[in-house]
């Protein structure tokens, strides 16, 4: 399997979700699109250093000297674990704040929330 497709697909996904952020009127949809944006970045990182006949950097492959130069770079995966954890916590805070806003304004429409907060 050609992993350049994954890279390309992650770029496309990134900009699709960015387009979604620009166009979605409801705040909840925006939060979903930020999650999608993070997924695109994670996918991009995981595609780094992957290719044909590359083995995942876990388990017996790492210990076995025969496989060592066929094992994928483990660093992006370690980075992405951190990024996913941070992304989850930030999204959790976002959703909590949105819930409070929803209770106050009874809507998740960005324009209405903005108008009620400005006036």
């Amino acid at each position, binding site marked *: 399997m050609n992993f350049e497709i994954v890279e390309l697909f992650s770029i496309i996904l990134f900009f699709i979700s960015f387009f979604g952020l620009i166009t979605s*009127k409801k705040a909840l949809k925006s939060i979903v699109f930020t999650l999608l944006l993070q997924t695109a970045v994670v996918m991009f990182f995981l595609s780094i250093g992957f290719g044909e006949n590359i083995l995942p950097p876990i388990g017996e492959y790492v210990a076995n000297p025969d496989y060592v130069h066929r094992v994928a770079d483990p660093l992006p995966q370690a980075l992405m674990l*951190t990024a996913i954890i941070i992304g989850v916590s930030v999204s959790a805070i976002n959703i909590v704040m949105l819930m409070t806003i929803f209770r106050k304004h009874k809507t998740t429409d960005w324009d209405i929330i903005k108008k009620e907060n400005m006036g």
Partner: protein
Amino acid sequence: MLAYFVIIPVLIAVFLYLFSSAKSGRILAILIQAALVAFSYYLFSLSRVEEIVTVIGIYDGDLGIVLMSDNLSSSFILLTSFIFLITSIYSFHENNKRLFWFLLFLWEGLLIGIFLTRDFFNIFVLMEVLAIVVVILIMFNRENRNLYDGIIYLMANLVAIQFYLFGVGYVYMITGTLDMYLAAQYIAQFDRSALILPYALIMTGIAFKCALLPLFSWLPKAHGTPSAPSSVSAILSGLHIKSSVYLFLRIQQVFQDISAREFFLVIGIATGIVGFIMALSQKDLKLILAYHTISQVGLIMAALNIGDFYSHIGGLYHIFNHALFKSCLFLSAGVIAEIYKTREVYKIRGVFKEAPIIGLATILAVFGITGAPLFNGSISKYFIATNTNWLLNAILIFMSLGTIISFIKYSSILWGKSSAGETSITIDKCRQLTTLILGLFCFFGGIFGAQFIEFLFNVQVSMNFIGYLEKVLVFAISLTVGYLIYTHFIKTSSLLGRICKARLNFRGMCASMGIFFMAILMITGYFYS
């Protein structure tokens, strides 16, 4: 050694959480802050001589995470610990909530981390955690909390940071390292056209954090929101935004060949002009100051991208000056708003009668920010404009004129008959002391300007007396013109009232981020590939 500068404030934050609601706990907190200032001065004096490098982990420089302290970063750390000391003395009586002191120390540790680290991914982690810390702090006071400000800040930051992270992924894919210095070395070997996309992605994230022209809509609400304690606003405006400017400097060094200097020069100038026009239309004390932060960051960005040595030094010195006078203004505005129980600039009169020391600190800081002769703003503005051509010089004078006009409006709160009413509250000694110290620093930073610059950046600069006198003349003329414009035009204009309402919502912010990304991609692609 350097890792302790990040770890110790965080550990102290956890430790103090147990008993910082007691008075003795807060005294301990302030003593620790003072000790941190002393330690960062020690680090600064060491880093002036040579770079200090610490590698975290058992690996050597190529694989481990590298913390590095050179002259620039250690001077920023000195500034950070100083501003945090001042603000924690300020909020000694104001805030006895444990969460506040916990977050304050955590914030300090994370900011120092940003100044120290050389690792791209560390910066991502620190920026994300900082965004969470800041969003809790700006919604700190429950009674007038506005969740809309918070959610806008956090979500827009999340999107911007994803841009940054995507760019970092590209850098890692191309160079195979996350270390800034090594990446800068490897990048020179590669084809420039491969670097344009990562540069545009990273710079979109950083420019959002710096609040440059189309991307600043999040800043005024975050920095001027009523629910934030004034000490938090002071740190946000004085210091927090400078961490992004610092990152901008560092990342420009990595992408030396394709750094779009002219683009950022133009954007910086435009940000400066739009910032003060927006500031002129505001009525709220804190919002005026918040919009001025945008304007001043635009000036700093323009100065750093002119490409002249003196302008660069002037821009760096202006970062420090802005930290001093803007935090002084925010802290004193907090006291003023408490005395008068309103934040509307037209309803407040007679601060000098009501609170002479706060008034004195405010006027010193106003002199600093407008670049009055003998004050620190004039020194940095003098160096920024030293070797520029006539066009840039005219633009800089125009920007300074705008600052003068809106601070004539701001300082009108100082004079006249007091409008506070009967209920006069006693003003806290700690607050008077801290605002006055910051105000005096604005003054001494002007008188001993060249010495301060030599102390901070380890470079010798000399000032031309005739040239400085010229600046004094320009200041006097623009003060007169500014006063006339203010009384004859600004006070009666209805156009500004409409600008006041203009602000992007979340979708608009994302769209402006996309526009900025496309612009920088096309410009670097066209001119530098």
